[in-house]
């Protein structure tokens, strides 16, 4: 059976046989780079059409249905339009920083791709502090928003950026603590180890109530970290027109837009990896037959299935809830999520020491 890891190994062996090792490594890097950019483009297209369809069905509409079969090529058409649109730089803006900000947003999203395991043994960089790396790098994304808001020389943008700064810095804490819950249970920061530890059951099932609490806190916190509604204060359109990207247009806007969706994908992938077993199939106790059938489904399908389920949940939030106010947003973090996740980490630690989990 063909799997991603087999294909990767075949390419690796062929390259090493044909070229000398240095050149082979360079070619591999180029291939990985192209693959990441390709994945970005595909993800952008898929997630945008998914968002539009989800919102349309929730809002008793049909959604895009003109371009391509059932409107599936709509986001391609939108991308084309954004590509040919003039990317303006306002005259009063800090030109260098203004143009730099979208690239930082993209760069962060690309860096975050590195430790994600898409399938068994299919990972760009299996580093032993994968989880720490993810939470460290994801906090850089606030810098791009702050730069964008500052450099635009626009009051709405500045306010959006400042809101976003306060928001991301606070929600990082509870996101980190809820990730820590799984790290405590596993005893490793390595993403592969975390997935392997879920071979006999996902942490959300094995970890009892504390894991579920950690999962809920995680989903809430990452929704806030990715600036998605109901925490989209940075771009609250009824208050700040479009927040930090008010002045951006054309491809520069598209990069922010793409980075938002890729960030959503990445945090959902992390969530799926930590709590839902990554590419591990769904197994139920001793049902050998059932487990065997589940094993037949490739790991990448499991991974993408779980990730897209989480993405759907985050979209579902967006199209259901009203937006919070800035002080309520910070109240939610500092008065509810942080105490709860601190208490929760205590529970998890006790549970891990006493071995109460399965």
């Amino acid at each position, binding site marked *: 059976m063909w799997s991603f890891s087999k294909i990767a190994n075949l390419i690796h062996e062929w390259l090493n046989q044909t070229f000398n090792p240095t050149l082979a490594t360079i070619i591999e890097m180029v291939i990985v780079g192209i693959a990441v950019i390709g994945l970005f483009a595909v993800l952008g297209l898929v997630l945008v059409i998914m968002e539009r369809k989800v919102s349309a069905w929730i809002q008793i509409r049909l959604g895009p249905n003109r371009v391509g079969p059932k409107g599936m090529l709509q986001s391609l058409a939108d991308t084309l339009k954004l590509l040919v649109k003039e990317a303006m730089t306002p005259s009063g803006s800090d030109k260098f920083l203004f143009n730099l900000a979208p690239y930082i947003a993209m760069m962060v999203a690309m860096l975050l791709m590195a430790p994600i395991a898409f399938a068994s043994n299919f990972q760009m960089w299996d580093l032993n502090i994968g989880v720490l790396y993810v939470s460290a790098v994801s906090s850089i994304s606030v810098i791009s928003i702050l730069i964008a808001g500052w450099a635009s020389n626009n009051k709405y943008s500045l306010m959006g950026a400042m809101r976003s700064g306060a928001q991301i810095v606070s929600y990082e804490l509870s996101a980190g603590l809820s990730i820590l819950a799984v790290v405590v249970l596993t005893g490793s920061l390595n993403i592969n180890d975390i997935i392997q530890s879920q071979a006999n059951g996902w942490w959300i099932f094995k970890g009892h109530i504390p894991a579920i609490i950690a999962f809920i806190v995680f989903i809430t916190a990452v929704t806030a970290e990715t600036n998605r509604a*109901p925490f989209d204060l940075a771009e609250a359109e009824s208050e700040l027109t479009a927040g930090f990207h008010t002045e951006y247009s054309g491809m520069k806007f598209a990069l922010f837009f793409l980075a938002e969706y890729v960030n959503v994908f990445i945090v959902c992938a992390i969530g799926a990896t930590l709590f839902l077993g990554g590419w591990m199939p769904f197994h139920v106790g001793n049902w050998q037959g059932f487990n065997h059938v589940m094993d037949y489904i490739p790991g990448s399908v499991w991974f993408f299935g779980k990730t897209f389920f989480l993405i759907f949940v985050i979209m579902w939030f967006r199209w259901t809830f009203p937006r*919070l*106010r800035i002080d309520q947003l910070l109240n939610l973090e500092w008065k509810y999520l942080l105490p709860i996740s601190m208490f929760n980490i205590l529970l998890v630690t006790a549970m891990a020491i006493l071995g109460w989990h399965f």
Partner: protein
Amino acid sequence: MVEELGTTTEGDLIINVGPQHPATHGVLHLVITLNGETIKKVEPHLGYIHRSIEKMCESLTYRQFIYVTSRMDYLSAHINNHACALCVEKGMQIEVPERAQVIRVLMDELTRIASHELWWGAMAMDLGAFTPFFHAFRERETINDIMEETCGARLTMNYMVPGGVMADLHPDFQKRVKAFISLYRSKIKEYDEMLTGNIIFQNRMKGVGYLSPEDAISYGCSGPAARGSGVSCDIRKLYPYEVYNKVQFEEVLETAGDSFARYMVRIREMNQSVSIIEQLIDNIPEGDYQAKTKAVLKLPKGEFYTRVETARGELGVYIVSEGATTPYRIKFRSPGFSNLSALDHMARGSKLGDLVAMMGTLDLVIPDIDR
């Protein structure tokens, strides 16, 4: 901090909300002085959509000027037309047949529900929840279809004429209205699920934009904006016109005075309107839908004032007649203008995000403010 409110000092952020801004639903221009996220002062600038409707009305005859008033508060176009027709009837001392009165009240209440439905959706959209907007439009669309069938138009119907209504009810009217009521009853629960009970929504609304009863009166607020503060001001109850004194309904009052109270007033008012429609829909008396009037209306010399309760509050129509076929002077007392004046008072000291909640619950319709 508190004593600084209402002033602009060095270092304050002054931002424009409007005239082109997603929050204002029109061309209202608010100049907001901010200290961080805290609002120090809100200054509404008007005049972007001033079409001098009052002056236009002065050059039109008493039959013609009614249609112009649909363009003031376009969400309660029927009720605007009703107010003008009432004023002309008062001047001419025309006795409106009972059937016409019932039809007018039915249409008024349908318009009120439609207006509140749109308000519900638009306010939710301001607060960042997009879905309710589409769900509210589903019910509103049913009312629009009913209007289209009987009046021939969906928004600016021009159905009221001095002496009655322009045409008789469509034969399907009763059936369609009953279908709407059953649809409404099945869907109003969803409104509570989607918004009213939602913890985020309640936190956004409760305690936001407090308006004391004294302030509500002194700013001249009317309609749900004042009734949310516990000020009894429903013209339908206090000065009943048409058949409002023959139907059973309660004046909705909330005492909290915050945005959530104004929200609840409108939600409960929709239920009251439905109950009025239910009482009348099976009891539409037979008879003429229009009184016999002279071909050319000439109001006697004098001054005439009538007021009605629109979806937004008290609409007054003041006509000064010199005995000619056109009014000498006409003046509208529009509810939105007075309600807007309370915005600065309400908004001081609250966060920028609250401003949209307050504007939402004041239910501002900009052409009504500017005329």
